[in-house]
């Protein structure tokens, strides 16, 4: 009989994710991904003012803290045919780019690294040798023997106190950890440095959006005005702060994040075998970072399209408004559809009714042969596809983006790996690092354009013409899309008489973490885990490596819409 292995909670992610898998011997035959928390945010959006929607939608997730806000304002602007000033477009690019860099660095060090880095082993490192290693790969200044010796002492003091806190009960010493003590000490030091670094660079969001997490957005532009002669607008002081953050981001990416990725990857090449941790072979990008307007797809830094069967020679066109292309299914999810549980729906027609048929908590196992997740199963033309950094880097590579080709080729050369090794757990993690480098370079370009516009006298940041709902058509619908750090994200909105009547968010982690569909096709996580061999099923570090390589964001992935308003529950408090 096949053994069932369960990992719940999956930690070092956003949200509530549970993985169940069946083992044949020590090999995973089938994996099942379940989102175990639902809030109902899209339902809550019904009846609201579309201009308010971004704030609600943004709270889908506090890690991808601005992406849902941006997708939301874009959906309203698409529905109302509401153009925004070029400066607002540039400021949004800068905010979104900053989110990528911040999010990817934190994912690498604080969520993913400890799958590969053994903190306890770092105690055995020779600080001098660690310094030699660090200085051989980077010009980062914090690399002296004394620095690493201090970091090691700090770590030692912590461990010897006997209260391991967040590091308790981990799989330290597991044979899957391959790094020498010096690489471990370097990575642990950078774990702490990155915590400090990220705190400073979010200043960019605070400048444009007032705070981080959850910076402010505005339908029709951005809320921060530009006035070089005001003490309370984007002035020279503010621009200088933004420039400083852009420098700090680029510096950390180039001198710490990229070199660390290369060093760590060089010890884990067995995780770069084609198909190991990459199961679907289908990849999709919506495209983003317009240099002109959001409707000018050709001006995007990240192109749009679908790659099937790992064939980089052919890119399928993608249309977010085509009712036959993107559909969400619920046959294995805890929802019902009015058209029946087996049929998919395009998001404009999207609906959901809670129908929890899972086991009553507390439970040991899910009923994996029935419905088993609060996530839906989105499909493109009926196919499961992967979204995210790997999809984007493949799309850039396939469309022969010069920087991407150079980065990918030189990385593979350094690691002595073939191009096929991109289709793997390690390929996904490396793709994230490489796209961060591309974004960190693009930031300067957007900033220079912004400064150039101001120089020419264009300080406009908001278009007032369609702000008043009296100017809107009585019925309108639109889609706001973006490439979020975790992949293609889109919000579909339907507006009637100035109010939201339907709102659907189909998000990256639903594409990747969603369950099986009516045809029993597995989602991206599920396919990626199939075939993994576990050294010890009680310490399934292999599952964590591949799941973390996707950077799960489960609060994002679980949602509902209920236009019938049939599921609301009134809570009376005595």
């Amino acid at each position, binding site marked *: 009989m096949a053994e069932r292995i369960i*990992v*719940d*909670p999956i*930690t*070092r992610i956003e949200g509530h994710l549970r993985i169940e898998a069946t083992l044949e011997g020590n090999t995973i035959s089938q994996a099942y991904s379940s989102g*175990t*928390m*639902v809030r*109902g*945010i899209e*339902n*809550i959006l019904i009846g609201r*003012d579309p*201009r*308010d929607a971004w704030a*609600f939608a943004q709270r*889908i*997730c*506090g*890690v991808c803290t601005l992406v849902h806000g941006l997708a939301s304002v874009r959906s309203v602007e698409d529905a109302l045919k509401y153009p925004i000033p070029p400066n607002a477009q540039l400021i949004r690019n800068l905010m979104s780019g900053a989110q990528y860099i911040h999010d990817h660095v*934190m994912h690498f060090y*604080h969520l993913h690294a*400890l799958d590969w880095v053994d903190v306890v082993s770092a105690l055995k490192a020779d600080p001098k040798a660690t310094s030699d290693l660090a200085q051989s790969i980077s010009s980062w200044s914090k690399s002296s023997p004394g620095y690493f010796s201090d970091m090691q002492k700090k770590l030692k003091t912590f461990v010897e*106190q006997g*209260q*391991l*806190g*967040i*590091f308790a*009960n*981990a799989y330290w010493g597991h044979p899957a950890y391959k790094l020498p003590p010096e690489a471990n000490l370097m990575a642990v030091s950078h774990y702490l440095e990155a*915590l400090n670094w990220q*705190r*400073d660079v979010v200043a960019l969001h*605070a*400048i444009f*959006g*007032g*705070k981080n*997490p*959850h910076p*402010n957005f*505005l339908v029709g532009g951005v*809320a921060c*005005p530009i006035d070089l002669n*005001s*003490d*309370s*607008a984007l002035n020279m002081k503010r621009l200088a702060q933004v420039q400083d953050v852009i420098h700090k981001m680029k510096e950390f990416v180039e001198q710490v994040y990229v070199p660390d990725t290369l060093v760590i990857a060089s010890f884990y090449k067995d995780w770069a075998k084609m198909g190991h941790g990459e199961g679907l072979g289908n990849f999709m990008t919506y495209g983003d970072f317009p240099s002109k307007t959001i409707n000018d797809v050709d001006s995007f830094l990240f192109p749009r399209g679908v790659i099937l069967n790992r064939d980089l020679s052919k890119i399928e066109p993608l249309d977010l408004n085509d009712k036959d292309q993107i559909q969400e299914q619920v046959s294995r999810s805890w929802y019902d559809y009015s058209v029946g549980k087996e049929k998919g729906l395009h998001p404009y027609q999207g609906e959901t009714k809670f129908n929890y048929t899972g086991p*009553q908590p*507390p439970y*040991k196992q899910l009923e994996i042969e029935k419905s088993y997740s609060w996530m839906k199963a989105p499909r493109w033309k009926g196919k499961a596809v992967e979204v995210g950094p790997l999809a984007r880097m493949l799309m850039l590579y396939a469309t022969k983006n010069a920087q991407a080709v150079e980065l990918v080729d030189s990385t593979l050369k350094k690691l002595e790996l073939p191009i096929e090794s991109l289709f793997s757990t390690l390929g996904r993690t490396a793709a994230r690092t490489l796209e961060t480098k591309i974004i960190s370079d693009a930031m300067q370009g957007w900033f220079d354009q912004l400064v150039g516009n101001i120089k020419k006298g264009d300080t406009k*940041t*908001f278009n*007032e013409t369609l*702000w008043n709902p009296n100017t809107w058509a009585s019925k309108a619908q639109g889609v706001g899309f973006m490439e979020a750090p975790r992949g293609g994200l889109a919000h579909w909105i339907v507006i009637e008489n100035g109010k939201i009547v339907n709102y659907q968010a189909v998000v990256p982690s639903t594409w990747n973490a969603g369950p099986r569909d009516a045809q029993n096709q597995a989602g991206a996580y599920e396919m990626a885990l199939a075939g993994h061999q576990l050294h010890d099923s009680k310490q399934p570090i292999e599952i964590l490596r591949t799941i973390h390589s996707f950077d799960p964001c489960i*609060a994002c992935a679980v949602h509902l819409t209920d236009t019938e308003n049939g599921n*609301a*529950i009134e*809570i009376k408090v005595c």
Partner: protein
Amino acid sequence: MNQLSLEERLRLHGVSRRGFLKFCAATASLMALSPAMIPRIAAALENAKRPSVIWLSFQECTGCTESITRSHSPSLESLIFDAISLDYHHTLQVASGDAAEHAREQAMKDNWGKYILVVDGSIPLGNKGFSTIAGISNVDMLIETAKGAAAIVAVGSCAAFGGLPKANPNPTGAVSIDMIIKDKPIINVPGCPPIPVVMTGVLAHFLTFGTLPELDHLKRPKAFYGQNIHDRCYRRPFYERGQFAETFDDEGAKKGWCLFKLGCKGPTTYNACATTKWNGGVSFPIESGHGCLGCSEPNFWDAGSFYAPLSTPIGHVAQNAGYALAAGALAGAAIGFANKQKSSQAIEKHEEITVNDLIKGETK
């Protein structure tokens, strides 16, 4: 493994024995205790472990966790390395699955009656299956973990007031922590998310003074939620003069005039944004041109559009602000807590005492 006492840890940070005893004396004075108590305090502190903190995440977006990582002082790393033992926290802890759950159970067992429970996210009462961790419903896990807690800190508007999940029509039947737990001290630290240093500040208060900070009628610490944003806002003088931004990006918006007419909820929102500001004091929403959403107030999601003015100013604007204030004050009858008397005594004899005040460099 041997565990370092507070004194040993302080010594590692360069604090001398004399400095340590001085700290104990200051603590005794702060707590209005006789000098005879100093050796006893010293003895208690010498054996102190870092207090255990268990952090549960329910119906949440992880924005509160993200926010606490942005805290400058104390920073998250100084908290978890030097001040607390963060024994369970989904986003940060290394262990997953059973190993993670064992960490929670072990921390509860080892620190029964003493650990601090931090909760973010609301609790769905509509169906236990709406939110589970390790197959356990949120409500069951909360009740079980709260039992041995010394105090509960509800961070974020979801845990404190139900937040976004509770917004109309509340599809999952979401409630706040204090709707479920009635027999423990609860501190609400609302905000969507709370200001980073407010979260760490509340924990630091507890660790430094051993008491809960004084709270208002909504269980919010007065130090951070005692004043509304409007009263502390640098744009307040423009409100008084009747100078408003009429739309985004107009002359008034550029000059930093009051955002009241663009829907700013500063007058009815009690939070420290205008004084503490965000992200190392860089800015706060109003300073960056957008009105306050009111995100630390109960039910702010259902309080009308974020862009609708609180009321249309008719006649003298300052008077309208006065009404708003009166409404806030009416609701503001503070509830007394066991520590109240103690803290007022402490306030009378207050001396600023932190570890940083101790004499350094006289080790041994």
